[in-house]
């Protein structure tokens, strides 16, 4: 069993005034693929390194399975780690890099050989076993790093931004390889990244962190559909969610979100969201609309239009990103490339109102989705 449990864990560096990770509580289930995601300096790598035993824990308790591991050295934690820069031993061949951990554990030679060849076969490294790391490409090195972790058959697999040194194409293919590897090994994976695409596509659940504090911990779908706050809403999704100040107005028993930008846009709030927004009538809230939640011209009605000025567009193939202004706010709109929206002109675009998000302007917490 390799669940991981953080109980009030705090990490503070010597001489620092604030904790990098203050009072972390996190439960990771056995065999789960968890992604720790957040901007640079949010404490995600520190959290991973605490699991590995490469960082000491200032206070609190960390369990791997049923075992309290606060003071257990890395080698006795039954973990394996893949580093961002691969950390392959340059003076050893690929074979010895993969076998090193097993050799130190005095595993039988024949067994080492069997495991190394099995891992090499899975990772398509069998023809490279006698090469040194410097003779390999970035992707091959990354696979060796994965192989080194695999052969140990660890209870927990830790990956610290393993794809960030690869080019975009290789990153996409390695992403699916790692997901496949998780299914094959059927063990707990903890994966650190700052790339939300990796987070969304790979993880069973995602931990979004900021300043060492967990902002939200849930499945990718829940994070995308119902972000808890403005930070998560802005972090998950690409391009990121658009945020506009909107005043809540009540008229004829209905609620409207009024956006002052290129003129005044009055957007009808669907009935399902009305109750949550009633206390905000007369107040300004933050309206969040994802770029993909704008609609084509034919869906435009009198109550769902947002008046904007088109700046320029970015063709992506089947669709394009339209960069528009609503007053001083930049808004990104995803549209099929068949839609012809002229640059430099003012237009009204339709908002998919049931998918609008509202956030409290002061607390930045979600009001309703």
């Amino acid at each position, binding site marked *: 069993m390799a669940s991981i449990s953080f109980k009030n864990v705090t990490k503070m560096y010597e001489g620092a005034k604030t904790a990098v990770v203050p009072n972390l509580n996190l439960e990771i289930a056995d065999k789960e693929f968890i992604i720790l995601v957040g901007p640079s300096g949010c404490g995600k790598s520190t959290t991973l390194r605490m699991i590995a*035993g490469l960082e000491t824990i200032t206070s609190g308790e960390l369990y791997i399975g049923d075992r309290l591991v606060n003071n257990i050295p890395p*080698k006795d934690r039954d973990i394996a*780690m893949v580093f961002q820069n691969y*950390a392959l*031993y340059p*003076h050893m061949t690929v074979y010895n890099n993969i076998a090193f*951990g097993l050799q*130190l554990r005095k595993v039988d030679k024949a067994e080492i050989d069997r495991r190394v060849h099995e891992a090499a076969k899975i990772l398509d490294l069998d023809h490279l076993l006698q090469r040194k790391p410097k003779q390999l490409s970035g992707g091959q090195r990354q696979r060796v790093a994965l192989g080194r972790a695999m052969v*140990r058959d660890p209870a927990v697999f830790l990956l610290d931004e393993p794809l960030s040194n690869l080019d975009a194409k290789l990153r996409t293919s390695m992403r699916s390889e790692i997901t496949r590897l998780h299914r094959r090994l059927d063990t707990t994976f903890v994966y650190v990244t700052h790339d939300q695409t990796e987070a969304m596509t790979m993880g069973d659940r995602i931990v979004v962190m900021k300043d060492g504090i967990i902002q939200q911990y849930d499945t990718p779908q829940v994070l995308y559909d119902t972000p808890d706050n403005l930070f998560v809403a802005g972090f998950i999704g690409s391009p990121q969610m658009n945020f506009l100040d909107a005043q809540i107005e009540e008229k004829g028993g209905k609620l409207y979100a009024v956006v002052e930008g290129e003129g005044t846009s009055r957007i009808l709030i669907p009935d399902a969201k009305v109750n949550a927004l009633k206390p905000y009538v007369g107040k300004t809230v933050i309206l969040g609309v994802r770029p993909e939640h704008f609609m084509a011209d034919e869906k435009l009605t009198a109550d769902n239009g947002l008046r904007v000025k088109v700046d320029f567009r970015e063709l992506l193939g089947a669709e394009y990103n339209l960069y528009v202004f609503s007053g001083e706010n930049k808004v990104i709109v995803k549209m099929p490339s068949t839609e012809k929206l002229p640059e430099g002109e003012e237009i009204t675009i339709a908002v998919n109102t049931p998918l609008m998000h509202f956030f409290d302007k002061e607390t930045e917490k979600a009001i309703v989705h």
Partner: protein
Amino acid sequence: MKMKKSSTVILTIVAIVIAVYTLFPFFLVLLNSTKKATDIVANPVSFAGSSISQLMENINKVVTNSNFNFWAAFGTSAVITVVSLALLALFGGMAAWVICRNKTKWSTVIYMTFIASMIIPFQVVMLALISTFRDVGNFIGIKMLQSIPGIVFAYCGFGGAMTVFILTGFIKGIPYELEEAAAIDGCSPEGTFFRIIFPLLKPVITTVTILNGMWIWNDYLLPSLMLGQNGPVKTLPVAVQAFVGSYVKQWDLILTAALLAILPMIILFIFAQKQIINGMVEGAIK
């Protein structure tokens, strides 16, 4: 284009001048070890009287001279050099690694002490060194003067500063993640040093070994003070003194002995040239 060509010519001339200036003493040793003493005194830069057979005769005289005792001196020099170099590489590597990876106030002080010791000339400490070694030897009951362990210990001290300085610079460039990966793989700190760090130091250890090796092998002053001119243990440069009398200097034998003394270094350089230069370049950029 023209300017580039003329600057190349100037650089080539400068290089030739430096090469001649550097190689001239070696040329004098080589030339005069093929001559008789009378011919050397008559004109040390003349080829008159120079022959291979004379060189062979001189070599034979040097090797068979009972006062000089070539093979014993050669063996002593070899033992002192090899053991000193091995210990310098081992302890220098360990010290540099610890200084690099344990960043504390004290590690910085220790590092600065190493650097500071590099600027103190040997002549300043040499007399105090002898009396200190005598006292330490008496205290611990191990003979520190006129003994191989004593001089090896001294070389480790004098060579340690530069070794640590160069190795520290190199170790800084080794990613720390390698050590973390080793710790996760199951290496102890000692295991990490010997299995991961030490093998990676190979190019830069080659560099410091060459630099220290040339100095230790050729050194005259320290062994003459610590081992003495008439002691039971002599290195090659000290043993050459056997041909220097108060009234007569056997220049033919002195220079032939000097040639034999520098020969191992030249042979080493010829065979390890590529690795030495690689080591120096790699040490410089990492």
